[in-house]
């Protein structure tokens, strides 16, 4: 006797409704598990996104071109020149922006204090497209062009130096001849890096101004920002082909620590998911086995009437899939709903000091990726199928004679 599939589904569906409370509990467990996985996933993705953004924003870009040796000894000796009309040899539709910079270690002095910083000569307009300068709040004004003779410094640095907007500071750095170059600069603006650590590190001025100070036309780096991280490797290869004597590096190589944390966050998502699913799996097996044992007599009867073992297995598996499926849909809905509630971001301001220590921002915006939702759905269904294997086995092992004699 072969049963039509729809009949099997109907049978399983009715079986589920026979124990509303028990199956309701199971459903709730699935819902909570899937919901929290989706939510935690979005939070971690949000953190990862911030990290990537900061890493790339941090003047690294997705790909960077440097003179050999610059990383070990960042001085103006380790520089190179490009044609004034140079364009990156990349598909323009993949490039969000690019810029060339002169970046040298320098000392900044006010009347009262002295600090070591990185003096960065930039093209202010290009810079806004590719680095954090385009995103941060600036008190005062922004640099007006590559020949601007003023400086933009971090708010925290201004506090350390006991100086203010509109004041003059002195920058001292070293030319390629080893002699000091010094000049006074007026502070055009203070940027608020939200405690991301960059505030005390980077001082910006016009690129041409810095080149003039250093008696050079060379630059120390080209930084390219792409539309997405995935194209980094491709862009790296293409740039390397056109700059055979220079170093072309991705942000992962330039900031291995952040790359490692990034990979760790990926793993964390997976570990979290696995733990939740294993816990859920036992609950599922337990419920299904109970359901099978309860129906020993009934299943024995059905077998005696000629139901194929295959149909018995199908019935259990369908039951499992049904409950998991419903739980999954509800769980995803709850997860998405939770994330949407926190659209504005989670304010970590209360723990600002600790949070900033980890280089995080004070507002964490969870981020949902459709690919992650699909992955959660598929993985959950697979777990459900695996979990139904043992109960199904128990159901098949029921011997009709013994079962009916009970």
């Amino acid at each position: 006797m072969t049963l039509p599939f729809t009949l099997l589904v109907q049978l399983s569906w009715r079986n589920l409704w026979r124990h509303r409370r028990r199956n309701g509990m199971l459903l709730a467990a699935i819902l909570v598990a899937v919901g929290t996985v989706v939510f935690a996933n979005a939070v971690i993705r949000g953190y990862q996104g911030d990290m990537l953004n900061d890493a790339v924003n941090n003047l690294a870009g997705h790909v960077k071109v440097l003179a050999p040796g610059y990383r070990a000894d960042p001085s103006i000796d380790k520089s190179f020149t490009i044609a004034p009309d140079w364009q990156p040899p990349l598909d323009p539709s993949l490039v969000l922006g690019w810029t060339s910079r002169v970046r040298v270690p320098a000392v900044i002095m006010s009347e009262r204090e002295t600090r070591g910083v990185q003096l960065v000569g930039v093209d202010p307009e290009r810079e806004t497209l590719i680095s954090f300068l385009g995103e941060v709040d600036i008190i005062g004004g922004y640099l007006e062009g590559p020949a601007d003779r003023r400086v933009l410094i971090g708010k925290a640095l201004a506090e350390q130096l006991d100086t203010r907007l509109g004041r003059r500071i002195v920058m001292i750095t070293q030319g390629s001849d080893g002699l000091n170059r010094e000049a006074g600069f007026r502070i055009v603006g203070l940027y608020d890096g939200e405690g991301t650590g960059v505030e005390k590190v980077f001082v910006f001025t016009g690129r041409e101004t810095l080149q003039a100070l250093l008696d050079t036309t060379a630059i120390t780096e080209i930084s390219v920002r792409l539309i997405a991280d995935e194209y980094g490797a491709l862009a790296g290869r293409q740039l390397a082909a056109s700059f055979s004597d220079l170093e072309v590096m991705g942000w992962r190589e330039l900031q291995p620590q952040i790359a490692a944390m990034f990979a760790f966050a990926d793993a964390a998502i997976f570990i979290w998911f696995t733990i939740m699913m294993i816990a859920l799996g036992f609950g599922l097996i337990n419920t299904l086995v109970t359901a099978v044992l309860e129906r020993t007599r009934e299943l024995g009867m059905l077998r005696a009437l000629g139901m194929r073992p295959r149909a018995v297995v199908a019935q259990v598996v369908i039951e499992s899939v049904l409950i998991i499926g419903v739980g999954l849909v509800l769980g995803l809905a709850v997860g998405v709903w939770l994330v949407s509630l926190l659209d504005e971001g989670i304010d970590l301001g209360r723990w600002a000091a600790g949070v900033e220590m980890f280089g995080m921002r004070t507002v964490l915006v969870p981020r949902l990726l459709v690919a992650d939702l699909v992955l959660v759905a598929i993985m959950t269904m697979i777990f459900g199928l695996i979990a139904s294997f043992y109960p199904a086995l128990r159901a098949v092992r029921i011997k009709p004679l013994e079962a009916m004699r009970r």
Partner: protein
Amino acid sequence: MVVIRFIAVALAMGLGGTAFSEQADQPTARDLVAAAIDLTRGVSSYTEMSMVIHRPDWQRTSSLRAWTRGREDALIRFTAPAKDAGSATLKTGNKMWTFTPKLNRVIRLPFSMMSQGWAGSDFSYQDLSRTDKLLHQYDLVLIDTQQVDGFTHYTIEATPHENAPVVWGKEEMVIRDDYVLISQTYFDQEMVPLKRLEAVDIGTLGNRVFATRIRMSKLDEPDNWTEISYEKADFDISVDDALFTVFALKTGRAG
């Protein structure tokens, strides 16, 4: 270097008396500063001095010897206390090195250290190394003339140019008519005085009249000052050129 500059200014007045006494009664600010610097070109000197570093809760006295050649080159060596004896600073052109016998190492001074106190004093390395910046990087204006003890004291206000490598809002110098720098005050950009260099004693040494005791004090931190007194000075002596080398710095040879 201030020390050197003081010697320089001292020399300037020594010679300056003859250079300017017959000129107009009212020299310009630029003349006053420039003459002082120009007249010291090519002068060599040997001086012995003591330095007192004073802090609210302690005070330290050390002895030093200095050799200069022209305006740019100088070697300063500590002779006492024993702890510091042998430590030396060499300046040639605008490069500077220090030598510490304990480490037996010569360190080329990185530019990041230029604004730090020299040998723990209130003089920064930059104070030591600055030369004729005043002439090229500042607008000089004579703002006051006063008669003090039979001398004319000229007060000159020096305002740095927009892109001058100077952190000060302005500097104010008082120069006597025989070119002794009586005082130099450094103002921050809100025009609040921050530190002051003063001639405490003016006397005659090595046949020249100059500020024989100078004091650099921090005005926002009272009771913090450094005083240098000249005990012996010889001018226009012949100084061995080999003295102004890193080798001499390390081997401690004395001219």
